[in-house]
């Protein structure tokens, strides 16, 4: 039996997501979104306190 095929794609290839040329850009976007969510949650708490 053959061993499972290894993936020929490389970690640095383009994510093929509109607006993003690198994976680093996607990670930064996810991080920025996370910060925004935390800020919005804090504002939500303060508004309805």
């Amino acid at each position, binding site marked *: *039996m053959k061993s499972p095929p290894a*993936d020929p*794609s490389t970690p640095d290839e383009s994510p093929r997501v509109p607006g993003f040329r690198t994976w680093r850009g996607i990670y930064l976007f*996810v991080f920025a979104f996370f910060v925004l*969510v935390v800020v919005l949650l804090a504002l939500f708490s303060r*508004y309805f*306190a």
Partner: protein
Amino acid sequence: MNALDWIVLLGTMIGIAAYGVWRTRDVHSLNTYLKGNQSTGWWTIGLSVMATQASAITFLSIPGQGFESGIGFVQNYFGLPLALIVVCAVFLPIYRRLGVYTAYEFLCRRFDGKTRLLSAGLFLVQRGLAAGVTIYAPAIIIATVLGWRLDLTIIFTGLLVIVYTVTGGSAAVSLTQKWQMAVIFGGMVTAFIVLLTKMPAGLGFGGAAHVAGAMGKLEAVDFSLNTDRRYTLWTGLLGGFFLSLSYFGTDQSQVQRYIGGAALREGRLGLMFNALLKIPMQFSILLLGALVFVFYQFEKPPVFFNQTEWRHHEQGANAATFHALDEKFNAAFAEKQTKIRAWLETREAHDAVAETAARAAMLESQTRAGAIRAEAKAALVADDPRAKTKDSDYVFITFIIDNLPHGVIGLLVAVMFAAALGSKASELNALGTTTTIDLWRHFRPLAAHDEARNVRAAKWFTAMWGLVAIAFALYASLAENLIEAINILGSIFYGVVLGIFLVAFFLRRIGGTAVFWAAVTAQVLIFVLFFFYKDRVAYLWYNLIGCVACVLFSVVLQLLLGQKAEKPHAA
């Protein structure tokens, strides 16, 4: 539940399972059986990762948590997006490049066989026990509320998940999880909408949120450094990061969900999909619980939400005590409702001074009602020391059964079962795969060359773990203590396993012997903490301590051994 509810419930559960069996009936390749279809896209992977993490307890307990303690629990997930970025950037590319079936197979290539066996063994012990709880915990709650037979509920759900997981392996798991998540999303949105329509006229979402906020249920972020507080921004970031990194990066039930797919891109996008959506999703479920709390400020709730337990005591020798508590709670509720309405009127009148006084009176009446609930729980224990006093898991299901229209009740119960089946299927799939690849093939290397035999072995092992889980669920006796026990069990092993993987990825000069003995020593240290210092060190810290100890001991041992043992084909 009436006939319509049963049609919706059984149609959804059996329909999705049958669809999974039918679509994957011709899976004969080991690669497809263990990793899923090569054409699987990021969307399916993302939903599959989400469904694996979201068990039925997520949809039973988390609204209850929002009801009881507010939405602060959302901070527990703050480390998750950051951990997923690390998994995406470091873990996943290596798993894909090596083409491994399991995370522990990577450890064999990076270190040696004994480190692989140790990690796979720790996973099998911990996840094998947890698999029983995945069925048992929701079954005990739903069976209690609906008056079903617990054993039949466990056996039916257990066998259903075994049938499609054994038939189609990973391909069936991903396929069915996609539809189960559709049911879950549909059901939760429906519950949200129906709940808003049940609020008093004129209150609306804004008014309800103001009531919840005034009663302290909407404090989402706590910036304090107070170590007494269980959920803060900092514990969420630090503890949540290590827990998530360990869970998503090294737990085979998750790794198996994203190492398949057409290309590395699909797995990465699937994980980023979760990094974006997980916190908003958990927030929505907690908010639902907080709104159920508001609903029960205008509609009288039971003094104790596990009504089966309450009625049992109410009909016993101390009936008078429980009737008196009921009466007392009814009076407190009526008083509280008056105070809340008075507060709402002062808000509308924009009278700041009157509003402050009305808010204080409202909170005072809330404290009184809470004290009666505490008194009721104490009375249950006084009547029977073995009585189960945690009723927050029963809040949402009680709301569903008592207040939602028929058809929607069936849909929401289907949500609970869809979540249970989805997470259970991933667990069985991972247990079967790890047993086949890391144990069976390790001890019978000649069998590795026979693909059909490998698939047969994987099917048998998956079925075996399914039956073990059913047996464990049938003989488990205490739900609430068991869930905590399984969480503790996970924390005992997760940190050390994560430490092994961090050494593998980031400390390339450390060899197998050093990391193996470091892991054993770190695990002993965690056992010592657990058995002798349980009261001083909370179990969530075991994740961090186990991980750090494993990494430090590895470095020290490698220095003592004084040799580099990196293997030529290591990552």
